[in-house]
């Protein structure tokens, strides 16, 4: 409801503003032409047959009169006195730039042009948008004071008007006549061909390509407009005056209705009931015009035209109400052009049916021009949008292709890396198995053999055990992957016999997964070797009863309650020194801080690192 009110308000405002501009437009003043006399006044009288029915009065030109009769033809006479141009062998021209609706002139009582309203010829004249010129031989003229009667006639429905006129130099006036003819009739023809072509093109668009109903309706509106323009280009196509008027008013109404449909489709407003209802009203109105008695035809036409003017206002309302359905620029242009057309039509209606002497008749011929502009705008606007959409699509396609290519490239690289990794992995497994079944199995077998024999070398046995433990550590570092906590757990399992043999209690505090930055299997192996060395030292040399192993994210520590040692002295004497030196060297290589604190109450080995 609000959008309808807003639309109605905006449309009415636009129409009123444009109407104001039209009212303020002055009638174009008669322009002086060299060698010609300009008449700004004339004697005027209504005609009854061939004679004035009232005393002539002098009126200023342009002068417009409404038909006083209800039926038949309405005739008036304008009279001026003019001078001959040149000598007796010359020609004097009589030139009427603008008048309505049919003309016949007589000079000094001699008729110079035929009377279009001769009995039996019931037809529309509508000469209102054409100039008129008549050439009179100077042989027929006095040097001065020649009487020119301009008889104008109109059907009931038409009005009568005459603008300032010229007499004089035939060459100059003929040139002016030709120019005006080209502008007036030429424009009507150009309009006709443009709307015809646009209509055909839009229907073709609709048929071949888009199936967008908006194109169908705009195309039909163009064809309806062509029917209206035809009326200005080829007079009297339908001999019967009433039928012809009915035909082109229906075409005008259908043009408005098609435009309404176009707006509804383009802005996705829908409104099927409004459209169907108005179409039915137009059809009913047309039937009514055909059936009306002749006396009621003129008010019938007025009502019919008022009807489609209201429909035009409805169309403007929809345009404003659903303006979010399109770009602001498109809305502004369409609203401006349709608003202008509506205003021009309304001003015509007012000057024809309300205040006769109100607006220049010629303004109506601008309506098709405005309409053609709107159609061209729609075509070019849609074309531009299609092009930009197409470019956007191409751009997005291109970027998608680039993306996919990069993805493909990446997955190729990943696959290559994977197969390489897999090859490395398989090779590693093979070496592991060799170590495992080969050397490992042999060493274990040797130990088992030695354990069955009395008095075997304990140094040799310890060495073999150490070698086996180190191998276990190597295999773990490869198999337990990146988890130092798991490797510590495995180390515990392997050292269990050692703890049992030395009756050592273990306090196990692996609180978190130690994360050595940038570590891989070999770094983890080095770290575990340090830890293993610290534990075996505590078991073998410190006579510890309890060993506490603690791990956090940033540290691993091994603490015992053994008798401790003096690191300096040990370093000098060298017995465990090899182990300590090795631990220090390994810690340095890893970039890990190694702290060894020893006292008679125990030893504590701390490995720590920063994130």
């Amino acid at each position, binding site marked *: 409801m609000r959008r309808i009110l807003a639309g109605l308000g905006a449309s009415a405002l636009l129409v009123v503003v444009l109407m104001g501009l039209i009212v303020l437009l002055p009638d174009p003043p008669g322009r002086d032409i060299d060698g010609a006399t300009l008449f700004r006044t004339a004697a005027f009288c209504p005609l009854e047959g061939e004679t004035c029915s009232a005393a002539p009065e002098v009126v200023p030109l342009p002068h417009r009169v409404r038909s006083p009769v209800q039926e038949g033809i309405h005739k008036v006479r304008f009279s001026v006195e003019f001078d001959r141009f040149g000598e007796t062998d010359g020609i004097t021209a009589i030139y009427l730039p603008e008048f309505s609706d049919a003309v016949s002139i007589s000079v000094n009582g001699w008729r110079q042009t035929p009377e279009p309203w001769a009995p039996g010829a019931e037809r529309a004249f509508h000469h209102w948008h054409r100039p008129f010129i008549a050439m009179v031989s100077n042989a027929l003229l006095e040097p001065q004071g020649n009487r020119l009667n301009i008889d104008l006639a109109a059907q009931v429905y038409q009005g009568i008007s005459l603008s300032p006129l010229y007499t004089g130099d035939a060459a100059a006036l003929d040139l002016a006549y030709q120019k005006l003819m080209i502008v007036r009739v030429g424009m009507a023809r150009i309009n006709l061909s443009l709307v015809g072509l646009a209509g055909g093109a839009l229907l073709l668009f609709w048929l071949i390509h888009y199936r967008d109903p908006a194109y169908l309706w705009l195309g039909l509106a163009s064809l309806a407009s062509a029917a209206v323009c035809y009326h200005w280009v080829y007079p009297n196509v339908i001999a019967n005056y009433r039928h012809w008027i009915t035909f082109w008013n229906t075409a005008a109404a259908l043009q408005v209705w098609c435009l309404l449909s176009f707006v509804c489709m383009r802005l996705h407003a829908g409104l099927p009931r409004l459209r169907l209802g108005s179409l039915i009203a137009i059809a009913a109105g047309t039937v009514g015009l055909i059936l009306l008695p002749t006396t009621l035809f003129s008010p019938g036409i007025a009502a019919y035209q008022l009807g489609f003017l209201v429909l035009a206002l409805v169309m403007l309302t929809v345009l404003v109400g659903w303006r979010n359905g399109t770009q602001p620029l498109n809305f502004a242009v369409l609203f401006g052009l349709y608003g202008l057309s509506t205003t021009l039509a309304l001003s015509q209606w007012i000057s024809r049916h309300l205040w006769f002497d109100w607006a220049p008749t010629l303004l109506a011929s601008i309506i098709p021009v405005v309409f053609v502009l709107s159609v061209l705008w729609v075509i070019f606007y849609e074309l531009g949008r299609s092009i930009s959409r197409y470019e956007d699509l191409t751009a997005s396609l291109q970027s998608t292709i680039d993306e996919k290519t990069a993805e493909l490239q990446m*997955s190729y690289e990943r696959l290559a890396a994977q197969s390489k990794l897999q090859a490395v992995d398989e090779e590693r497994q093979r070496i592991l198995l060799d170590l495992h079944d080969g050397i490992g*199995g042999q060493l*274990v077998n040797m130990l088992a053999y030695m354990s069955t024999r009395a008095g075997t070398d304990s140094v040799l046995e310890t060495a073999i055990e150490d070698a086996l433990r180190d191998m276990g550590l190597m295999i773990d570092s490869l198999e337990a992957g990146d988890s130092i906590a*798991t490797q510590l757990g495995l*180390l*515990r399992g392997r050292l269990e016999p050692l703890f049992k043999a030395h009756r050592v209690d273990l306090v196990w505090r*692996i609180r978190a997964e130690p994360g050595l930055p940038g570590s891989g299997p070999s770094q983890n192996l080095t770290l575990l070797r340090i830890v293993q060395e610290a534990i075996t030292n505590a078991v073998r040399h410190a006579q510890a009863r309890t060993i506490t192993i603690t791990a956090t994210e940033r540290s691993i520590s091994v603490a015992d309650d053994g008798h401790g040692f003096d690191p300096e002295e040990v370093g000098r004497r060298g017995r465990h020194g090899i182990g300590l030196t090795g631990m220090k060297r390994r810690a340095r290589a890893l970039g890990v801080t190694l702290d060894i604190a020893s006292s008679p109450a125990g030893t504590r080995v701390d490995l720590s690192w920063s994130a």
Partner: protein
Amino acid sequence: MSPRGFDTDGKDGPAGSGPHSVLIVEDQEHTATRFARAVEVSPELTVCGVARDLAHAWMLFETHRPRFVLTDLGLPDGSGVEIILAAARADWACDCMVISVFGDRQRAMEAIRAGARGYLLKSDPVEEVSRQILEVIGGGSPMNPKIARYLLDTMGPAVTDTTPPGGERLTQREHEVLSLIARGYKRREIAEMLNISVGTVGIHINNTYKKLKVGTNIEAVARASKIGLL
């Protein structure tokens, strides 16, 4: 040296009467001897035979119908996994464990999927060997950090409220227990830390074994997603 002539036809009765019979399949002579001695430490266990290769093992397996098989994997004429599969299909109660030098992951897991209840290290203390065998016969499942880590890696994160209930996912508690085992904690320590009984820890471990067998295709999925195929 050997306390009994275990390399001959055993004289044990059918499984269930008297001490449990154990078949040892190991090609390294001294290692085999050591394990045989370790088994005999327990009065509840007796060695019914020691095979050095697969062919010999088949014969002893069929003849003695052992309650327990202790097998190496790399044998001169084949893989010990075949014995494990046979034990799983046997029409009498027969459990298996693998003898391994270091418990190399790939083959140990293969054996576990075939039905072995974990592995013994060749360096394990003598009393540990018999203890673990008895534990398995009693219905328990030995577990060590390597297997726990493997289970955690292949079975993924624990079931949460949002994941659909399924047989092959670990529960929160099972995940906790496995994580602690992977870090080297013993069952007793885990029971204390989680405030549950040692028996309950054992039940959780048994359940994870069952889930592993249910979801033998999980590993395929895990492997596939690791190399980026999924």
